């Protein structure tokens, strides 16, 4: 297990390394050199200031030296400085990270658990109404823009029915504490988590259904049937675990998309996470923050990948034993 984890961590390091290089290249590929851009952001575009910035950030040195400096800064936790907000990017990101982690992790759990359950239900009832209903709903959810679902849910559940808060992380000024505060946050989470989770639940539902149908046609399921097992037992003991494996693999790969989706959801619900930060940075063309967001979301993706890999090992005994 230790070796397995080390292996995954090494892979993660490579991914992050490439993201850092990509970030660096993007800054330099941007129209106008970074100093001009930064000067623009700082609101002072005169040549003196630009030259001073150039010197300060070593922009007059060869590219590979600059890359070295950039990497060493990142290793020290320095992700640059946002002139717009007059704060280090790392601080801005750290402020917003917890809200995004809470949102994406909840949505991921909901999507995975719900998707596997619904997909299996559809596969077991293949051709019957339950299957058709699940398939149609999944097809629709899969085709709907995530932000629009969020808006429509707000329209129904907040504006028309008034059941749930439409935006924010908690009620401001309500002065909740302890358990009451937790409940308040939970109520605020329902719509964003549902919005983000629904789309990916559709993805995993479709995948689980297809995978379960494929597993059901395999020889060992026939063997199980020949033992006189009930259909329920066959599904829970033989089909389920085998059908989950490909879903987990894809869920790991798609974690990046889910985290990307959270940007849209956070924008809709004014959720105080990285998404809101991104939206504001886009409006203000705050590149340092955008690149920081890209880096941090990549770290998150890598973390999600390790989680799904561990889940995979738990489901498939062969991986660990074979090592």
């Amino acid at each position, binding site marked *: 297990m230790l070796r397995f984890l080390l292996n995954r961590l090494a892979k993660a390091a490579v991914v992050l390394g490439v993201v850092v290089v990509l970030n660096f290249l993007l800054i330099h590929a941007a129209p106008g050199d970074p100093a001009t851009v930064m000067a623009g952001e700082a609101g002072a575009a005169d040549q003196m200031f630009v030259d001073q910035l150039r010197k300060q950030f070593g922009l007059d040195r060869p590219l590979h030296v600059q890359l070295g400096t950039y990497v060493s800064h990142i290793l020290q936790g320095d992700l640059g400085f946002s002139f717009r907000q007059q704060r280090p990017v790392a601080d801005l990101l750290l402020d917003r990270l917890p809200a995004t982690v809470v949102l994406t992790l909840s949505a991921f759990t909901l999507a995975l658990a719900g998707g596997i359950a619904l997909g299996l239900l559809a596969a077991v009832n293949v051709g019957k109404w339950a299957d058709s209903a699940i398939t149609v709903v999944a097809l629709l959810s899969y085709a709907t823009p995530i932000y629009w679902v969020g808006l429509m849910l707000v329209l129904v559940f907040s504006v028309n029915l008034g059941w749930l808060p439409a935006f924010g992380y908690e009620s401001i000024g309500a002065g909740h504490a302890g358990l009451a505060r937790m409940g308040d946050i939970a109520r605020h989470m329902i719509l964003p988590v549902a919005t983000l989770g629904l789309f990916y639940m559709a993805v995993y539902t479709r995948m689980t259904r297809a995978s379960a149908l494929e597993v059901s046609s*395999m*020889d*060992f399921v*026939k*063997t*199980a*049937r*020949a*033992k*006189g*097992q*009930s259909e329920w*037992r066959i599904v829970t*003991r*033989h089909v389920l*675990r*085998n059908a989950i494996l490909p879903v987990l693999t894809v869920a790991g790969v798609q974690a990046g998309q889910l985290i990307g989706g959270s940007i849209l959801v956070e924008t809709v619900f004014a959720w105080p996470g990285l998404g809101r930060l991104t939206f504001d940075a886009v409006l203000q063309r705050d590149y340092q923050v955008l690149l920081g967001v890209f880096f941090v979301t990549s770290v998150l993706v890598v973390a999600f990948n390790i989680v799904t890999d561990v889940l995979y090992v738990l*489901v*498939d*005994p*062969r*991986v660990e*034993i*074979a*090592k």
Partner: protein
Amino acid sequence: MSETPEIAEPAAPLLEIRGLTVALPEGGDRAFAVEKIDYVLNPDEILCVVGESGSGKSVTAHAIMGLLPKPDLRIAAGGILFKGRNVVTMAEAEQRRLRGHRIAMIFQEPMTALNPLMRIGAQIEEALEIHTDLGKAARAARVVEMLAAVGLPNPEEIRKSYPFRLSGGQRQRVMIAMALALKPDILIADEPTTALDVTTQKQILDLIKAIQRERRMAVLFITHDFGVVAEIADRVAVMRHGRIVELGAAEQVLNRPSHPYTRALIGALPHGRPADKPAFAPAAAPILAARDVHKVYRVAGTRVGGRRELVVSDHVNLDIHPGETVGLVGESGSGKSTLARTIVGLVKPDGGRIDFAGADLVALDREGFRPYRRHVQMVFQDPYASLNPRHTVGDIVAQGPVAYGTPRAEARARAAELLRLVGLEDSAVARYPHEFSGGQRQRISIARALAMEPKLLIADEPVSALDASVQAQVLKLLAEIKERLGLAMLFITHDLRIAAEICDTVGVMKLGKLVEIGPAAEVFGSPRHPYTRALLDAIPGQGWAPPQDHGGS
């Protein structure tokens, strides 16, 4: 259907199939998978159901177990009586109580028949959990007992293993242990040895026979192989196009078949005796001489298995003379196909030399190999994978010469000629591969090889995917063409009976080594290597010499 009087009729049949008809989905080329099938299975006997692919031989077995794929296949008429009770009309729960308890089944593909994510012990225990109220310890003890009974070493350890640790033969033993765990009245075996090597097949057949004798079970054994029938059957049912054409005692059906179809089937079997012609005397220097060819595959680690090395050619020496047919026999993984692919240049060996027409093929790069390539051609094993489904048959045959600069029109005219030569109609040129049967596709494959005007033809298991009757035809065609064009041929097969019949010289391979090579009559008549003897000994149905007087195709 009349019972043969020679057999003493036991008190009551254990299983009785009465007018069973299973319907196929609409729009197929047949309305029924099986039609009006009648037979009985008595206690303490082995009944073999034999037939070619598509004869419906395993549909009945699946119907008995209630395993017909729903809703594609359904029972349209007839009954299946187990101890007088009709399984077809039984409630699902009642059927389940029979399944795996009184009637057990094993399947063709041991590699996929076990759940890869569950320990062997747990999979065998499942049947006990469902049908008995044995406690945990008792179940575990029974599992160990069963694993020992089917001859697996270290049953305690195997009980805790996952299937991927076991070989195909071991997995089939596990399947048998699982089937026998509840001491069933009937064991249904659906081609249980088809996917296994011949020596493993022998062990499994012996095991099934021994267990049947010991427990006096009834065994319904489905197979396509008359050798296997001769090895194990008490009675035989021959099926064709969903009907039983002949049913009787094994001795009678095998030696005095009454139905023309049975006679044709048996007549088409390779008799497995080396031809009575004198040993091949080379008239010229070898056209191909392989010296010290070796190759090791480094199998990359997967998510499941680690990295390992596989020796596929272990310093092999081989000569092929003009006009000679050299056979390579051996079990899967023996390296016989790799050797063939090395000679045609599909696999680059790690070392050694292959002399052909004055050049060492191994030393040549791809460009240098090109002039020699056309003279060494190959016929492949799988008729369904060896022709590009998107090209017409004429194109497929003409492509090689065109790549070598023959004008397209000329190449196509030649292709039409060759297709006639291999016995296909003129219209074949413009058609696509999917319109042809397996045997016809192998003919196209042969025409494609011939289009290159080869000096050496390599046939890699060219008939192993075909039914016995078609096998005989394709073999005959190969022999004729070889004779007519004076080709040298390297013939690779796992079937020793075929090798004995058509090869001048036979080499036996094991784990990448050529352990024995010599004139066919010698290798089969007085084998020197113990492995050759083991292989020969494992050929099923050796005690039986198929009657030849009926003449095949």
